[in-house]
């Protein structure tokens, strides 16, 4: 199993496409920081205009913590797209290149190979999320320093700088879990379609439909929200409520765990029953 995993990780990090997503993230985070450096003051002035009528506002309002949070808020829609570029290719690339036939002629269990693929996806997603977290936090705090942040949930909520770091770490952990759920789905689609492009497009199609349904606040769509995986993935934002609604987070965590389990199970089933001579 260890040899299989090492082999999968070697293949993963040898592929140029593995590095596309981190490069894109670097560019986006630099642009967010640049944008806030140039225009952040104006945005906050607009946001806090009403408060300024009654209060003197003091302190470092545009700070690294705020920009780190803003980066996460901006990126949570895009991260799955960048994750799927790699995870949807994990199985299908083996079919496309024909390497799967050679692999399965060796004395290894199909379930062991699938486990190695799943673990590879988990390692990639975790490393990718850590990279995003470290980069967004590192650049922003280096340039803008630390401070309290303003969050627009149910009005304006102020999260103190002391509260920020633990909540940010919880957010990263939860987001990694959410991304793994999406990765599991993309691996199943990758196994089913045996084609990287089709797997990426189908995964993105599901993501877009789910996100759109989540965005509609119309009656019928509103009741669908709890069944949308993107809705539960976006629940990381609850960690930035003044009073964290732990029950809601637990429900979403259970949903994502079940979602992951279903697609991991389906992937094993599909792969074990697959006729590779076709």
């Amino acid at each position, binding site marked *: 199993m260890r040899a299989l995993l090492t082999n999968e990780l070697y293949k993963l990090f040898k592929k140029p496409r593995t590095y596309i997503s981190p490069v894109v993230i670097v560019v986006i985070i630099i642009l967010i920081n640049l944008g806030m450096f140039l225009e952040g003051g104006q*945005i906050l002035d*607009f*946001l806090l*205009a*009403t*408060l300024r*009528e*009654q*209060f*003197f*506002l*003091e*302190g*470092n*309002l545009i700070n690294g913590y*705020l920009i780190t*949070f*803003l980066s996460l*808020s901006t990126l949570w829609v895009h991260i799955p797209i960048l994750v799927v570029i790699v995870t949807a290719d994990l199985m299908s690339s083996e079919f496309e290149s024909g390497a799967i036939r050679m692999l399965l002629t060796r004395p290894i269990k199909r379930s062991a190979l699938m486990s190695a693929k799943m673990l590879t996806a988990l390692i990639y997603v975790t490393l990718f999320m850590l990279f995003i977290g470290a980069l967004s936090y590192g650049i922003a705090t280096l340039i803008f320093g630390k*401070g*309290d942040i*303003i*969050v*627009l*949930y*149910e*009005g*304006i*909520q*102020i999260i*103190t*700088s002391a509260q920020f770091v633990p909540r940010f770490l919880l957010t990263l952990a939860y987001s990694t879990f959410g991304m793994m759920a999406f990765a599991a789905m993309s691996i199943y689609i990758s196994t089913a379609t045996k084609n990287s492009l089709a797997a990426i497009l189908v995964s993105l199609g599901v993501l877009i439909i789910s996100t759109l349904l989540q*965005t509609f*606040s119309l009656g019928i769509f509103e009741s669908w929200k709890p069944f949308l995986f993107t809705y539960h993935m*976006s629940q990381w*934002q609850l960690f930035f409520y*003044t009073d964290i609604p732990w029950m809601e987070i637990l429900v979403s965590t259970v949903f994502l765990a079940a979602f992951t389990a279903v697609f991991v199970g389906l992937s094993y089933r599909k792969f074990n029953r697959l006729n590779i001579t076709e």
Partner: protein
Amino acid sequence: MKIFALAFFLPFALFGQQDALLEEVKKAYKNNGVQCSVLVHIEVPGLKMPDKNIFVKFVPNQKPVVKGDGMMLVPKKGLIGQFNEVLDAKSQVIFLGNDADTAIYKVVSLDPNSDWVTADLRICRSNKRIYFMDIFTKEYGSFQVRHRYKNQMLPVQSIISFEADALKLPLKFMGRGEAEDIPTDANGKVKGRVILRYSNVVML
């Protein structure tokens, strides 16, 4: 004849008495500034903020100095160091009447540069302390301030109430992208309250 004389001189005598009370209050609150620690508790619909401990320093005719960790919100009117702003201003004072041991005044600002227009004061006759101020400003609406005292001339707590425009929340910015409803009155205003607890008060 005596009754006529009494009727003629009594208003002047009473006015003199009220005037003297206000002069005593002005003297009592006279200082070159105040510095203290303040625990700020804010209750504004649509705004959730943890209580903050800050240090403030007020010197007449200067912008208040506010120090503390992170973001700090300090109400513009009703603070401990702002009594002189009303008492020492060029103004017309109108005595409105008495309510038990409390004298009620309306102070109308005559200074075109001051940001307040009128201030209603309720002053306790026996201890010469201002317990209530209702300040109308040119730009920021009105602020009602209730002061609580212990042994000092300056308050240990001020409760500032005000009406404000409801917070305007842009969609899709730093949030979940959902407009949250903040309950307002018929004029689109919300009622806010700030409680300030003072400690280590030093008159400069």
